[in-house]
Every structure is written in C-alpha cells, then in structure tokens.
C-alpha cells in the first residue's frame, strides 16, 4: 500500500514538473525545507543526550513548568515534532509522568507559533537566501569536525541554512505563479470551503510529516496571494490536526504511556480545530480588531495568519491546561495495559525503539527491564526452593517458612524459562547491544554493567534449575541429615533473597549500602560453613556418596545464586541514581575486602 502510494506520488509530481517549472520550484523548496528540518533535528539530538535530559527531569515537575519547557524548547529548536518525540521517549522510560508530557505538548503548540511569526515577519520580507549561503558553508565545515558538539552545531547551522533556502525557493515559485496562473480561482468559500481546506491542510501535513513545512507553504502561498485568507486559516487548522498523526505514527513503537500521550496530542489539537472551525468568522473579526495594536497592516495577511496561529494555539492551551488531570484519567481508562497471568507468556514492559533515541532513556529503560527480568527469576528461584515469593516478603520467621513449606513444589523450570525469561532476556540483550553501538563511551560504561547484570540473572536461574531436582528429592527425604542440609541451603537463600528485596524497597541509602556488602559476606561465610559441614557428614558416613555428590554440587549452585544475585542487586542499586552512583559504588565492599573479613583469601574452588 505504502509503495503504491509512493509510485502514484512520483508519477503525479513528475507530470506536474513537466507541466510547470513553478511547481518544481515550490516542491524543491518544500523538499529543501524538510531536509533542513531533518538536519536541524539531527543537530539538536547531539545536545539532547545531555542538556535536554537534565532540563526535562528538573523543569517538568509541575504542569505549568512543563508548558513553559515545551514552549521554550520548541521555540529554540523550531520543531514541535522533536519535542513530542522526546516527551514520548521520556514517558516511555518512566522519567516523566503523562500529565507532564501533556504539558510539554501544550507548550510545544505555543512554541510553534514563533515559527509562523519568524517566517511571516522575517522570512517573507527579506532575501532570506542571502543568509542561507554562509550558514550552509559554515554548517558543513562544522559537520566534518570530530567533536560531537561542533558536529551538532554544524547540523543545526546547515539545517537553518537549508530551511531558509527552502523558504526562498517556495517564495520564488509562488511569485512566479502569480504571473501565469491565479490559484485563488480554486478557492472555496463558506463552511464547505473551511472543511475542505482543513482536510487538505491535514493531508499535506501527514504527507510532509511537518506542520512547520505546511505552515511555510501556506504563508508563502498567502503572501503571493495564491490562496485566500479564509482558506489559509482552514489549512492552518488542518496542519495542526495533521501534525498529531506524525506523533501517533511515532508512538506505535512506544510503551502504553507513549501511546496515551500521542492520543492526548490528537485529542487536544483535533478538538481545538473543531472549535476553531466553528469560530473562524469571530476569529477574523478579533484579529482585525487586535492586529493594528501590533502594528500589522490591514492587508498584511501573512502576519495576520501568524496572529491567527498564535490565537489558535493559545486557545488550545487555555482550553486544555485546566483539564490535564481529567485527560490523564480519561486516557488511563481508554488505554489499558494487558495484564499477563503468571502462567502466560511474558514480554518486555519498558523496552521500545524510541528509548534508543537518548542516552538517559536507554539507560533507564534497560534498568527497569532488568528489574522486570529479575522479578521473574526471583519468582522461579523461590519456587525452585519449594517456597513462594510471598514467603520472602511476608516477614515470617525463616524457620517457620521451612516448617510450613516442607513439601516439594514441582514446577517445570524449562517451561517457565520459555514463557517468562527467554524472550525478555533476548530483547534486553538486543536492546543493550543496539544502545552500545549508538551512544558515547561514557554512556556505554553505564550500559555494560546493566547488560551484564542480565547475564548474571540468567546464570542464577540456571543454577536454580540445576539445584531443583535434588531439592525436590531431599527435602522430603527419610535421611534427616541430608534433609537438614538442603533446608539449610533453603534458609540461607531465603535470607539472601529477603535482603535483596529490602535493598530494592528501602528508601534509606545507608541500609542498602550495608546490605549489599552483607550479601557478599554472607554468601562467603555460608560457603565456608557448608563445605566444613559436608566434610563432616562424609567422614561420619551420615550421607551416601550419591547424596554427598549432590550436596557438593548444590552448595556450589546455591553459592552461584547468592553471589550472582548479590552482584545484580549491587548493579541495579548503584545505577539507579546517576548523581549518587560514584559515592554508592565507592563504599560497597568489594570481593577482596569481603575475603579479608572472612579470613579467606583463597579463591573459591570452581564447580
């Protein structure tokens, strides 16, 4: 379908270019302008990784702050699309809430109005191509530099240059049109005309994927008197509706919250558009009344359209800013995440393509998905010990847990792996590798340990799977000695899992730092004690050789589970807050320091 559309477009445009040089000039102008916008976005992406992330997190705590943030960033970047993508990406990663995201979108609508003013007041009045040339030359010069910041600056400069050049071509094309054909003869008046041109404006924006490009086209056509003022207003309304489709397409790969934001964007702009269509005569009268105060001449329709665009978007914010919380609850009711039953196949919850756009979102998403995988593995490890995850969080005495869970739980570990681990694990590793190839070395330094934490989680699962078979046999064994040994393994792992849950749930940093060191110490101490106990049992013939071999292997597996999960807890805790990362990391005891405490400098035997 897409390919067919492309072929039809190429055929129509080729025919039009053969018929009129002016259409070619206008189309080339649109193409150059769009290329400029792409280059501008690319340039801002070089800075977005650090600067925008920091601003977004700090300046969007309140709705009004989000609106201001959206307005300022869209004004600076002249791309509401990029700001919306950033907002969707941050919402998907859980860095900001839906309400803040809606605030950014509302602010973005205000920010786009500056573009209309710049084009109508500056771009159409002077020879803009003169400014484009040096920008392009210096822009390209900077793009070839090694420094990322200079490269980003180069893209921004080149983007502006191309945008200016595009506007110049469009202006030239429409001016030339004036001499050969009068497009206003196709103008349609009345309500029918409003609806028709709104639709044309929306379709043109969907095709060009840029409301800015549509607006430039409308303004240049209006300045050259090729469309009527009323039709230009309708096209502007259409462009505002059409731009939401870009966000909807962009949100297809996003999380449910990203989809909610795209839904909000569509709702806000479409409803404002519908209200505005009904109020066009009133708007025109109001503009005629207020334009002289701003020094806009009566026949300067381009500036009047910029003023209309401003009123339209301010109306949009005035209508919806007080309703943000209600919109959030409405969207939460409309977009409901599917709940997965434990027995069903589980999938990633946070990973999405949009999260790969920025370093911070990629790291946050990776961290959250790792916690998701950890939660699934935590669940199966407890079942492998013939207990339930609720026992860990219950606060019940460990001895009592062992007493009430004296019967073996027969769980199919392979099935669990297929349904609730394999896909998530695969997607996490794939995401981490993609992210590693995309971001700076500094970002990779943060991503690699999180990726490795996933490998450790799966190692812990494998150890648990190997241990399960003997665990099932021996916790119901007639030999009290082997039963006691396996219950001892269970007790130790319950204690370790409990401490890990405490680390994830505590708000007290010192408690987490202490527990993380304690996890390592306990794993070491238990391992030493278990080996001594095993030697005793073999010497005194209290267990058979087969039992001894099993116990020896399973002690190793238990150690693997404890130590791997301790490292996972360490990584997840340390990387949770990038500002505190180094301080936390510095105070958690490392393996050598733990060895010193247990007076066990020898490396552990290999399994």
């Amino acid at each position: 379908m897409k390919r067919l559309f492309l072929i039809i477009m190429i055929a129509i445009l080729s025919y039009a270019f053969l018929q009129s040089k002016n259409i070619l000039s206008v189309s080339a102008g649109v193409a150059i302008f769009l290329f400029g916008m792409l280059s501008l976005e690319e340039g801002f992406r070089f800075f977005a990784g650090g600067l925008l992330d920091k601003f977004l997190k700090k300046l969007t705590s309140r709705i009004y702050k989000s609106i201001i943030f959206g307005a300022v960033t869209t004004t600076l970047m002249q791309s509401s699309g990029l700001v919306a993508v950033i907002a969707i990406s941050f919402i998907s990663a859980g860095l900001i809430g839906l309400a803040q995201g809606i605030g950014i979108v509302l602010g973005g609508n205000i920010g786009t109005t500056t573009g209309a003013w710049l084009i109508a007041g500056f771009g159409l009045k002077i020879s803009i191509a003169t400014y484009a040339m040096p920008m392009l030359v210096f822009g390209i010069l900077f793009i070839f530099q090694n420094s990322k910041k200079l490269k980003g600056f180069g893209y921004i400069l080149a983007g502006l240059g191309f945008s200016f050049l595009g506007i110049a071509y469009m202006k030239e094309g429409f001016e030339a049109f004036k001499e050969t054909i009068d497009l206003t003869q196709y103008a349609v008046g009345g309500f029918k005309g409003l609806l028709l041109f709104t639709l044309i404006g929306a379709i043109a924006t969907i095709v060009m994927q840029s409301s800015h490009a549509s607006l430039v086209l409308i303004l240049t056509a209006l300045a050259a008197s090729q469309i009527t003022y009323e039709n230009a207003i309708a096209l502007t309304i259409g462009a505002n509706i059409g731009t939401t489709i870009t966000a909807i397409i962009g949100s297809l790969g996003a999380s449910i919250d990203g989809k909610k934001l795209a839904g909000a964007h569509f709702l806000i702009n479409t409803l404002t558009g519908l209200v505005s269509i009904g109020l066009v005569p009133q708007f025109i009268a109001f503009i005629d009344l207020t334009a002289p105060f701003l020094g806009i001449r009566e026949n300067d329709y381009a500036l009047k359209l910029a003023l209309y665009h401003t009123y339209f978007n301010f109306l949009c914010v005035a209508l919806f800013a007080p309703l943000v919380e209600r919109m959030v609850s409405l969207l939460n009711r409309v977009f409901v995440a599917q709940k997965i039953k434990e027995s069903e196949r589980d999938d990633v919850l946070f990973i999405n393509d949009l999260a790969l756009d920025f370093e911070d979102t990629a790291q946050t998403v990776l961290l959250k998905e790792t916690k998701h995988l950890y939660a699934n593995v935590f669940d199966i490890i407890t079942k492998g010990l013939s207990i339930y995850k609720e026992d860990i969080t219950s606060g019940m005495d460990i001895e009592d847990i062992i007493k009430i869970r004296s019967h073996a739980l027969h769980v199919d570990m392979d099935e669990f792996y297929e349904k609730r681990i394999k896909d998530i694990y695969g997607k996490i590793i794939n995401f981490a590798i993609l992210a590693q190839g995309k971001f700076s070395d500094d970002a990779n330094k943060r991503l690699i340990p999180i990726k490795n934490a996933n490998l450790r989680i799966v190692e812990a699962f494998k150890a648990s799977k190997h241990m399960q078979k003997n665990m099932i046999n021996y916790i119901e064994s007639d030999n009290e000695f082997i039963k006691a040994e396996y219950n001892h393994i269970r007790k130790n792992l319950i204690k370790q899992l409990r401490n890990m849950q405490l680390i994830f749930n505590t708000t007290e940093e010192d408690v987490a730092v202490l527990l993380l060191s304690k996890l390592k110490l306990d794993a070491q101490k238990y391992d030493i004690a278990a080996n001594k106990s095993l030697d005793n049992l073999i010497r005194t013939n209290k267990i058979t050789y087969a039992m001894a071999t099993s116990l020896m292997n399973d002690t190793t597996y238990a150690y693997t589970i404890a130590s791997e999960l301790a490292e996972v807890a360490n990584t997840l805790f340390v990387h949770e807050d990038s500002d505190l990362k180094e301080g936390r990391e510095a105070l958690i005891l490392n393996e050598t320091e733990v060895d010193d405490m247990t007076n066990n400098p020898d490396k552990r035997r290999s399994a």
Partner: protein
Amino acid sequence: MSGSKFITKIGELFGITPESDESKKKAVKELVKKLKLRRISLKKELKEESDIVKREALKDSIKIIKKQIKKGKDILDD
C-alpha cells in the same frame, strides 16, 4: 556562589566540562554521615540482643560499617 563555581556549574549542566570529584566526595560524605548514625543504632541493638545468631549478624553489620566508614574517610582525605 563564586564566579568559578558558577561557571563550573553551568559547564556541568551543559555537559561541557567533566563532572569533578567534588560530587563523588559530596555523596560519600553524606553516606558516611548516615553510616555513622546507623553504627550507633546497631551498637545499641547489639547491647539489647540476647539471641546468639542475631548477635552474630549484628556484629557482622557493625564490622562492615566500620570498614565502609574507613573507606569513606580515605576517599575524603584524598
């Protein structure tokens, strides 16, 4: 805020200058302060605890904290 500190802050915000050791030291200082308070409360708990296993666990925790505070002080003295 002095001029140089202001420039450093702006630089850090814009990602122009690498973050200094200052932020690490600040985080360590805060954490050491909290750990010292935790050690006091654990020592109190140890005095009141009669269960041998729990006493052993508390002793381990105090030993760990002692080592962590020492590590923190070394970083701060650097």
